[in-house]
């Protein structure tokens, strides 16, 4: 490349000197003149946009992504077409509504870097506000940013100038404009548009039972995606990272049991990690359709004992079995219910176990629990969770993060917000494993004692395994819009399942072209620049000052002679003294 460049230069110099001279001088000048303005900002930071999606024809969330407005805080009087900045500690729904009512240009909510420093009630209040923020479809872009020192100083400066806006005299305004800084917030991306042809991936794997063709099947399901008011901030530790961890640990334990002919049971075990769970269980819905309507024979068609859905099991002292129809006596469902009750009462008496019955309401926008998808297709199903109500705010919050301080020993400050407690997670895993084992090996009928523990010593539930799974799951956001079929989350889960299960398969859901069940939008993570700007009046003031200065210089130069003679007169007495 350099030889060619030197050849070009040689030819240029040989041809004509003046031409090359003008070329060399002219071209850089032109390039510099037409070059775009440099992007030197006071501060550049990453911002995460609020959710934007359509579900079953209904639009949710913030519709807009671009932003190029001046910053203000809520105290300012004029908020229209300005970017309103709020800190989480001062955030309230009324302030948010006020900003929207005054047609603000954008809203930026600043979250502290370390959530555990936030008091419990603020975190709780924010968690309850998240669904309300999403419920109203708004054209105002709403962004979340993590706080650092520079952003905090920008915020305090903006707050000072916003709160002093209405109340000062003209002189104060002039002085203020000269000394204070305004900030212009600009995002670098484009307008958000719908992502076409997004594939939600789900994974299944199985363990075959022994003893003939027509064995009953037990399905264990957990959805691996997470949800929050901002997709890039939804880590979903408890909901549903804990469910995935329990499912993977159960797969490992039962595959060990099934690897020996003597301990292989007479049930098929089918494990399913579904995607799109927070968007009304799209993965499960399409999987069921494909298996029940479009395939000749599948495990789901023949003989399903029951479907156990795992949802949010990482914490809490209660365990609730959510059903849409109370199980009939003598059914395998009822057997599991009984085994769970027995294991809890004998081995874990401090766990409060109960069955929660809620009928499927098809008129609702979204289904309550995953088992309702199976219930609609007449498969017996229930969901196990430590949450009592499907409306709990902990299921869809960005505050659901793996806590920084490890709670292995229970010491340390209590973490605000939902999080995973490893001791309780492993206790729940063991509980479920014991109950399942009692069902598939028919232990109660054979007269085995209620406090017999199967999963001990080599077969015990490995807490480090659970810890590393939850840690890995919470290092990246797992929102359904961010996990596509090539993502590492999917491939790692597939690899993990493949170590213990057979016939691990991927299953894809793509939205229908004409009547899509779900539509995702892009531009969810942006870089925002905060430019220091001065108000227009400052430029005018500066022009006046410069004009005055130039006037003084002109006078000084014109009457330089006067100055010189004054100086000579000052020097003259000294000269006379020599």
């Amino acid at each position, binding site marked *: 490349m350099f030889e060619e460049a030197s050849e070009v230069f040689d030819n240029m110099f040989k041809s004509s000197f003046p031409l090359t001279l003008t070329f060399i001088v002219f071209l850089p000048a032109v390039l*510099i*003149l037409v*070059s775009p*303005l*440099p*992007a*030197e*900002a*006071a501060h550049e930071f990453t911002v995460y946009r609020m959710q934007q999606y359509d579900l079953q024809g209904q639009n949710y969330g913030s519709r807009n992504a671009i932003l190029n407005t001046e910053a203000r805080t809520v105290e300012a009087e004029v908020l229209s077409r300005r970017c309103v900045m709020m800190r989480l500690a001062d955030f309230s729904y009324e302030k948010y509504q006020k900003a929207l009512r005054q047609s603000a240009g954008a809203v930026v909510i600043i979250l502290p870097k370390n959530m555990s420093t936030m008091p419990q009630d603020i975190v709780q209040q924010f968690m309850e506000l998240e669904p309300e923020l999403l419920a109203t479809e708004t054209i105002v872009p709403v962004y979340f940013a993590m706080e650092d020192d520079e952003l905090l100083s920008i915020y305090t400066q903006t707050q000072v100038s916003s709160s002093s806006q209405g109340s000062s005299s003209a002189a104060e305004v002039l002085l203020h404009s000269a000394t204070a*800084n305004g900030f*212009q917030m*600009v995002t670098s991306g484009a307008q958000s548009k719908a992502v076409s042809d997004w594939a939600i991936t789900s994974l299944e794997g199985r363990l075959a039972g022994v003893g003939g063709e027509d064995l009953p099947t037990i399905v264990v399901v957990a959805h691996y995606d997470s949800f929050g008011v901002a997709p890039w901030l939804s880590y979903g530790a408890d909901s549903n990272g804990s469910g995935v961890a329990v499912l993977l640990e159960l797969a490992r334990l039962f595959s060990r049991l099934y690897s020996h002919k003597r301990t292989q049971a007479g049930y098929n075990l089918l494990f399913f990690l579904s995607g799109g769970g927070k968007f009304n269980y799209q993965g499960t819905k399409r999987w069921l359709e494909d298996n029940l309507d479009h395939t000749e024979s599948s495990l789901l068609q023949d003989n399903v004992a029951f479907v156990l859905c795992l949802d949010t099991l990482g914490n809490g002292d209660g365990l609730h079995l959510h059903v849409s129809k109370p199980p009939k006596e003598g059914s395998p469902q009822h057997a599991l219910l009984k085994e769970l009750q027995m294991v809890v009462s004998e081995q874990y008496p401090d766990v409060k176990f109960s069955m929660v019955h809620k009928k499927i309401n098809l008129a609702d926008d979204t289904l309550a629990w995953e088992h309702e998808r199976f219930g609609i297709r007449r498969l017996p199903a229930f969901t196990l969770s430590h949450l009592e109500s499907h409306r709990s705010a902990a299921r869809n919050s960005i505050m659901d993060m793996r806590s920084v301080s490890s709670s292995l020993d229970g010491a340390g400050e209590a973490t605000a917000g939902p999080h995973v407690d490893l001791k309780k997670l492993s206790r729940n895993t063991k509980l479920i494993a014991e109950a399942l084992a009692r069902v598939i090996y028919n232990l109660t009928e054979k007269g085995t004692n209620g406090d017999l523990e199967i999963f001990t010593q080599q077969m015990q539930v490995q807490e480090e395994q659970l810890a590393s799974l939850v840690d890995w799951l919470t290092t990246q956001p797992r929102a359904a819009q961010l996990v596509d079929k090539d993502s590492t989350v999917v491939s790692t889960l597939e690899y993990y399942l493949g170590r213990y299960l057979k016939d691990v398969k991927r299953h894809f859901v793509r939205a229908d072209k004409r009547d899509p069940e779900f539509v995702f939008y892009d531009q969810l993570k942006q870089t925002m620049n905060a*430019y*220091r*700007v*001065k108000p*227009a009046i400052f*430029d005018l003031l*500066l*022009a006046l000052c*410069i004009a005055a*200065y*130039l006037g003084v*210089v*002109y006078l000084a*130069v*014109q009457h*330089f002679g006067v100055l010189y003679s004054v100086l000579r007169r000052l020097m003259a007495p000294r000269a006379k003294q020599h």
Partner: protein
Amino acid sequence: MTLFHFGNCFALAYFPYFITYKCSGLSEYNAFWRCVQAGATYLFVQLCKVSSNLTCYECCKEFMKATVDMADLLGLHLVMSRNAGKGEYKIMVAAMGWATAELVMSRCIPLWVGARGIEFDWKYIQMSFDSNISLVHYIAMAAVVWMFTRYDLPKSFRLPVTVLLGLCVYKAFLME
């Protein structure tokens, strides 16, 4: 308003030069091309300084680099010796040409590129004001050089003139 800000800075930097040129009587002597020649000499001297800075010195790097600034004085002397005329005329022509060349070379491009941006920074105003100060500085420097080369300079003035000359050259070094 950012182009306005660029206009402000440009006015602050350039107008004093314009005023000095017009009001000090240089325009009556048709000194424009002589100033341009002085500017060309400035460019040449800067080129020499840059190429000498590229050579490595073993000891006292900063001191040697400051000594190279002596070339500035030699350049001014060269310009003044080539111009026939009264003393003040020579000084003004040399200083105007020198300072204008410095203004164009070292301040125009940062102002154009920086002051037009969205971001505001006080340094552009500072840069423009700096150019005013360097105009006065170059006039003084040219005057001192001229005085140094005069053979009819009173003896008592020799020492202060030499000291001032030394200060001019080593100003940057002494400021460290």
